[in-house]
């Protein structure tokens, strides 16, 4: 059984209350940081821990913190990104619902490290229960002297606010989130300037994912070295994975980074294999934005190595044969699932969620959705497949924010790996309406590297 740092006490009754959380050793990290460490020492610990952003991009958190500009007389802000709206990702909501004080504790430690005296938790608008849960937790923490003026006599002041958004995926993009927090329309800003220089109210700002902030608690409690012992290479610590799809045991799992993907899917400790005795066809490993992989490529890299749950291993092979850990939204598809339909469904989401600022994303996402709809419903043409690839290329890299890329990648990767299935939808339109293409050869063993590049 892997170590649990975030969800260790998740099953303790009443852990969502301050009292029980405190009994279980909660708020020790605040005491340790505020009483024995300087803000810079906290930043240094987080740097040493190797923690990487859990919101999708995987940028080293400590490094991000050290980029924060610190001009005199200008406030700095820490904003927690709780917008979590990526299809397939639901770990932050789980954490905030069941163990809200972990986030509050992390917010205090992180705000102290950054010198922020006002910090915000920005939540997606639909998370009504979580808003109340967090506000109650904030009130409890304040009552116990962990928030407000002169916390634990350290001279450090902190006010924490929960701000619900309107329920837009795009408000999870950090600069759109900042706009929304300022009360404006949630359009991503054009960078530079980056939030570390000019963010909320034009002041230096750090935006971090819920899980990244929560992870600072075990890092401070146990020390960076202890944290960095878990994991492989530059993927240290534990990661929450939201597992869904055709799995026997879907749910939120805390894994030690580095376990094999195969173990995660099939071990009874985790997902317990594919439901109903079916076989695995494909996996979206990091939330809807990352490239989809067929079963054979998700279990092994193109070189035949075991694929591991790490940033590096999942990305092995680049976009040709790899994917990304992203936000850890792990969706498994069994042999009865239709890749064309799934791709259409994802593109429908991005079409709906584009903010509409820049032309390639505003127009291209809708275009891709319409073409995919036509393919799925048996009216497609063979040329549609190349058209989709071309449109996705016209969007990718040419937009203001990464939502354009996130819309392009699932389409491009589905066609890259499942072209047969797309073509079958065109050549067998009637059949495609009645049955699915099935597993085909998507789970076949990968050819050995030496067969691909014979040495002579």
């Amino acid at each position, binding site marked *: 059984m892997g170590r649990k740092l975030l969800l260790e006490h998740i099953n303790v009754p009443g852990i969502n209350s301050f009292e029980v959380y405190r009994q279980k050793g909660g708020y020790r990290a605040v005491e340790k940081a505020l009483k024995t460490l300087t803000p810079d020492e906290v930043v240094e610990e987080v740097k040493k821990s190797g923690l990487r952003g859990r919101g999708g991009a995987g940028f080293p958190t400590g490094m991000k913190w050290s980029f924060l500009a610190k001009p005199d007389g200008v406030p700095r802000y820490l904003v927690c990104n709780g917008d979590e709206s990526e299809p397939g990702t639901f770990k932050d909501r789980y954490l905030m619902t069941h163990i809200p004080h972990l986030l509050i504790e992390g917010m205090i430690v992180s705000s102290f490290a950054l010198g922020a005296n006002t910090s915000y938790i920005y939540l997606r608008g639909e998370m009504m229960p979580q808003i109340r849960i967090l506000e109650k937790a904030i009130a409890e923490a304040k009552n116990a002297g962990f928030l407000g003026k002169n916390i634990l006599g350290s001279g450090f002041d902190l006010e924490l606010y929960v701000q619900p958004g309107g329920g837009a995926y795009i408000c999870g993009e950090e600069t759109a989130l900042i706009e929304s927090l300022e009360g404006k329309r949630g359009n991503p800003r054009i960078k530079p300037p980056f939030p570390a220089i000019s963010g909320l109210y034009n002041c230096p700002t750090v935006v971090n994912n819920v899980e990244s902030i929560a992870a600072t608690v075990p890092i401070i409690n146990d020390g960076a070295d202890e944290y960095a012992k878990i994991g492989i290479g530059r993927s240290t610590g534990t990661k929450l994975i939201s597992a869904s799809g055709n799995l026997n045991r879907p749910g939120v799992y805390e894994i030690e980074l580095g376990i094999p993907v195969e173990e995660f899917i099939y071990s009874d400790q985790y997902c317990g294999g594919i439901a109903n005795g079916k076989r695995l066809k494909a996996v979206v490993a990091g939330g809807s934005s990352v490239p989809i992989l067929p079963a054979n490529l998700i279990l092994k890299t193109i070189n035949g190595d075991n694929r591991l749950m790490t940033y590096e291993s999942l990305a092995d092979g680049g976009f040709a044969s790899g994917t990304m850990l992203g936000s850890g939204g792990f969706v498994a598809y069994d042999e009865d699932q239709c890749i064309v339909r799934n791709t259409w469904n994802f593109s429908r989401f991005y079409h709906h969620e584009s903010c509409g600022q820049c032309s390639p994303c505003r127009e291209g*996402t809708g275009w891709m959705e319409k073409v995919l709809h036509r393919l799925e419903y048996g009216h497609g043409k063979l040329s549609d497949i190349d058209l989709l690839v071309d449109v996705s290329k*016209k969007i990718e890299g040419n*937009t203001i924010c990464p939502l354009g890329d996130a819309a392009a990648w699932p389409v491009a990767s589905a066609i890259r790996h499942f072209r047969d299935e797309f073509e079958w939808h065109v050549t067998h339109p009637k059949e495609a309406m009645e049955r699915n293409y099935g597993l085909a050869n998507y789970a076949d063993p990968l050819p050995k590297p030496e067969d691909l590049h014979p040495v002579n």
Partner: protein
Amino acid sequence: MSDKVKVTIDGISIDVDAGTSILNAARQIGGDIVPPAMCYYSKLQGSGGKCRTCLVKVSKGSEKDPRPMPKLVASCRTTVMDGMEVQNITSPEVVEARKGVVEMLLINHPLDCPVCDQAGECHLQDLAYEHGSEATRYEFERRTFDRIDIGDKIQLHMTRCILCYRCVFTADQITNNRVHGILGRGDAAEISTYIEKAIENDFSGNIIDVCPVGALTDKTFRFKNRVWFTKPVDAHRDCPTCSGKVTLWYKGEDVIRVTARKDEYGEVEEFICNTCRFDKKKTNEWVIEGPRKIANHSVISANHYEQLGPPPVIRKNPALLEANKEQFERSTKL
């Protein structure tokens, strides 16, 4: 003056002030290497970055950090660095990406130029002509919106809008109260006023001038004429509200439209007030300065030949070109 930095665009070097954008550096060089800009407007703070037509490739970041930039960048919002090398029309990648952007801008456009008042001075028309392809690959129903009157002087034809946000910045920055904005998201986003309010403001008419397409048009000019049949004349009046410097658009004896004066990039020189724009349409209300010079490539110049360019044979041959120039100078001296 602050420090100068050197930037090279498509092989042409120029020294510009630190802080200049790539687009503005290109404009200082001029000619074919200037990226098209549909949303950036130099007089409007914060504009640009949205339409993506001005994408360029930075093949060398700077003297200090020569690494190329990983993606194409919006030249209107990217600051030049010393030693930067930029490729615009010399990069096939840029040309291809721009073609893609133009296609995106057109897939939902109604292409109703024959009945659009903006035709002939529309930047989207020019852009599509210069950078687009002849046929569309889009086979679905185009997005449409109802036309709405925002007040009695301005009509909004949202179907034509490219969401450049210029009119929003204009209302924010040169009027004292913005009452319109962007509602909705993605390709359902639209310019609108909340609950169909009229835009009434001394300077609201300027949103017509900044609009690069025919989405915001002057109702007092609606369907009166095609712009290329009208003659632009610079004029001014003593106006208590604005500079009073305008262009009058004549058809025969009649002023049928008043606009601000626009430069070669279609940007106004000075914003004008609604009184000048909508209510002063008699010649005797103005002091006439002379004909407005319009860029040669514009159809508006079609009836106003300034001078003929040399025919292609001459243009290609440097010796002939020199001889032609001398000949031209001699004949114009006479």
